[in-house]
């Protein structure tokens, strides 16, 4: 077992941190103000080749490891901005298209996802369901060379940004309740495809989560990802990938909270001395550090198992069970250390606390993941 990162990985971390300093932090406040990021954000990621990281070069990707993606996600998490999400969404969606797509599908959809000309989405959730695939009501009915899609999706990240989305729909021709979900790649500028205004959330300003409405949208049959009726399996794969990426982002968020707490305790005087001298505070910091480290290595392990092509559905569920609440607690402790300033918008810590709350819900809920990990033990 080797806990040291390769020199390449270390340089990638440095480059990602450089990128955050130059391109992300300067726009952080305006993203919150506008509840949106600049349109060219994805192109900026493409320029430093942070898209299509796990996609082989022949499709326009970089061909690196999932561990490296997680390391970059961690750096982006440290910025306490939403910016990781468009980048991670493109990476996880591209990885899934590469893994399941036919040669024609790969050639058509991967290059634009890698060069930043297309924003990716992955859409499963609907107004009436987020955790139950049998309850999907958006349907795709075959018609000649196309499907005609009708229905609505909810909370679709980047659903309003031009590009492609993998939409999980009920296949009108397939009757088997357990195998009637098909993954369809939809051009988000198709006729009949409309979106709501972005949802306003308690954190993650600029996430661009919208409701998507399909009214007789024609999607070529050649846009099916994998095989018809196999959508649920593909979805489970994508969600597992997304869970690891989300955990990487959370580790960065936790590290940022810890760093801010350490800085604050050195500056704030209590009874004439910096808070950092108080044992009770040191204990809190020690606690936070060990938690962030534990989360970090559990996340790296999941990424390495993914790289080794081992089964990673359960290990990625463990991240939801352990990393998510642990980092949430770390951000709470960091807020507590800041006293009233922590609760105020003067400091960044309240923002980290609010962002951390998303992770128990997005990319499958913590409870669902407890079921995945627990049931695997007694199966």
């Amino acid at each position, binding site marked *: 077992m080797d806990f040291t990162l390769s020199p390449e990985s270390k340089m990638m971390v440095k480059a990602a941190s450089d990128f955050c300093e130059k391109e992300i932090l300067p726009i952080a406040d305006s993203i919150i103000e506008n509840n949106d990021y600049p349109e060219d954000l994805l192109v900026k990621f493409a320029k430093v080749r942070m898209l299509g990281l796990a996609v082989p070069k022949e499709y326009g990707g970089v061909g*690196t490891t999932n561990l490296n993606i997680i390391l970059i996600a961690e750096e982006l998490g440290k910025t306490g901005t939403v910016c990781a999400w468009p980048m991670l969404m493109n990476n996880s969606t591209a990885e899934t298209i590469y893994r399941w797509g036919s040669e024609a599908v790969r050639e058509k959809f991967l290059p634009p996802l890698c060069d930043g000309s297309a924003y990716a989405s992955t859409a499963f959730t609907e107004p009436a369901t987020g955790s139950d695939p049998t309850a999907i009501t958006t349907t795709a009915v075959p018609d000649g060379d196309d499907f005609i899609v009708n229905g609505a999706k909810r909370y679709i990240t980047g659903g309003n940004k031009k590009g492609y989305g993998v939409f999980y729909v009920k296949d009108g021709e397939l009757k088997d309740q357990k195998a009637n979900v098909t993954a369809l790649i939809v051009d988000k500028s198709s006729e009949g495809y409309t979106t709501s205004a972005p949802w306003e959330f308690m954190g993650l300003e600029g996430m661009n989560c919208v409701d998507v409405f399909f009214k007789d949208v024609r999607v070529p049959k050649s846009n099916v990802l994998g095989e018809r009726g196999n959508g649920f399996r593909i979805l489970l794969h994508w969600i597992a990938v997304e869970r690891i990426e989300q955990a990487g982002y959370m580790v960065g968020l936790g590290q940022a909270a810890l760093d801010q707490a350490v800085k604050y305790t050195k500056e704030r005087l209590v009874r004439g001395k910096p808070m950092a001298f108080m044992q009770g505070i040191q204990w809190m910091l020690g606690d936070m550090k060990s938690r962030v480290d534990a989360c970090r290595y559990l996340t790296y392990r999941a990424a390495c198992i993914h790289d080794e092509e081992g089964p990673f559905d359960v290990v990625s569920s463990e991240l939801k069970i352990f990393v998510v609440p642990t980092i949430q607690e770390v951000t709470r402790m960091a807020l507590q250390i800041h006293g009233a300033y922590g609760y105020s918008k003067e400091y960044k810590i309240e923002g980290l606390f609010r962002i951390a709350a998303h992770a128990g819900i997005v990319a499958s809920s913590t409870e669902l993941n407890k079921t995945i990990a627990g049931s695997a033990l007694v199966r």
Partner: protein
Amino acid sequence: MNIIVCIKQVPDVKEVSWDPKTGSLIRKGIPSIINPNDKNAIEAALQLRERHGGEVTVLSMGPSQVEDALREALGMGVDKAIQLTSKEFAGSDTWATSYALGLAVRKIAQYDLIICGKEAIDGMTAQVGPQLAECLNIPQLTYALEIEVTNSKVKIKQKLGDFHRLLEAPMPALITVEREANKPRVAPMDTILEAYGKEITLWDADDLDGEDENFGLKGSPTKLTRVYTPKLIKGKVEMLEGGPEEAARKCVEKIRARYII
């Protein structure tokens, strides 16, 4: 067009701390970085390559860990890297540094431009670039804000205090660039992966066709006699009363009384 970029590895001053007792730098455990200004030199070279084609070679003299700086330059996208490491080079001052770099440039032979940073954040003499040009007997264009190459001539906009000068020279020539010349790129992820697949050429004193007594400490005319922190004379703080205008007026009077303005 072939460009040589000279880069120096320096301690990361952001991480440097001072020993409060002796007042000297604590260098132990300080990470090393590419001299920030030399990243401008790399960026300038990469931009020229994008416009005119050719190859960019980075050259650095220093102990074995300069490999990290060279790998980082490869990560930014330069084509080749040459490392000058030898115990003979230890203790080089700016003259001996330029001498060794000059010999290496002669050995490379095929080049149109050499680009250096204006100065290193640790040594800060801004001498190595100009001395290297003298050593090679080629024109030097210093403090460049902009670089343009046309028909085997190079033109720069030179920053000189409050005014600019436009300089032109035939190539080969040496340029030193300012911090404001450009925004060094973030190393792209794919180039980083390639950077570790590339071989770094390693030359020691024997590989350079030079005189032994000109290398390193022996070859350094400047001798360091003492390093010390000047004593700070603690000033007195004086609070000026009154409204902003009145206080400003009093402040100006006081400064004038000391012949500062």
